[in-house]
């Protein structure tokens, strides 16, 4: 991300897998953090810590000094479930079936791939844009 500073924009769409314990929960937690303006802080913390049980997710909210009562209530009441489902519908409509899936300027890259593959696609996209100008 830093490597391409100013040239790259990352966009997150949720695609939780229905039959994993914490997929939907963690997606909703990220949305609950976003409701308090701290999506990326929460995202980074969750990625670093990797634990995703309900109490872990609430712990991250505490660490980031979110309004924990509000966060917990939104999590427990599935306030952001519909928002997460919207993304899932989008992913399905694009015929994506795996996570992570990446779309880099319209080009699809499926699965965890070595960083070189990303560089290749990002560089190709940059070259394409440069060529078009």
């Amino acid at each position, binding site marked *: 991300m830093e490597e391409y500073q100013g040239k790259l924009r990352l966009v997150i769409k949720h*695609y939780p897998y229905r039959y994993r314990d914490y997929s939907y929960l963690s997606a909703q937690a990220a949305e609950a953090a976003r409701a308090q303006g701290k999506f990326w802080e929460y995202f980074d913390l969750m990625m670093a810590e990797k634990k995703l049980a309900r109490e872990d997710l609430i712990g991250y909210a505490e660490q980031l000094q979110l309004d924990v009562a509000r966060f917990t209530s939104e999590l427990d009441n599935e306030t952001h479930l519909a928002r997460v489902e919207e993304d899932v519908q989008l992913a399905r409509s694009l015929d994506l079936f795996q996570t992570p899936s990446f779309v880099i300027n319209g080009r699809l890259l499926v699965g965890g791939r070595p960083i070189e593959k990303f560089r290749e696609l990002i560089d190709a*996209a940059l070259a394409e844009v440069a060529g078009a100008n």
Partner: protein
Amino acid sequence: MARLLIILLFCLLAVSAGAQEKPPLEVPLGDAPTRGPADAAVTMVEFIDFQ
């Protein structure tokens, strides 16, 4: 005649190669969280499962 056939074959191959090139996937960004400049040359959409 043979030459004509070869030319035809080349044309067919070129057309089928073109057809295999997939059109770019259009992903509506909507209100999705983004990081990085809005006018970045490259947009990478990640469909993510945190678990």
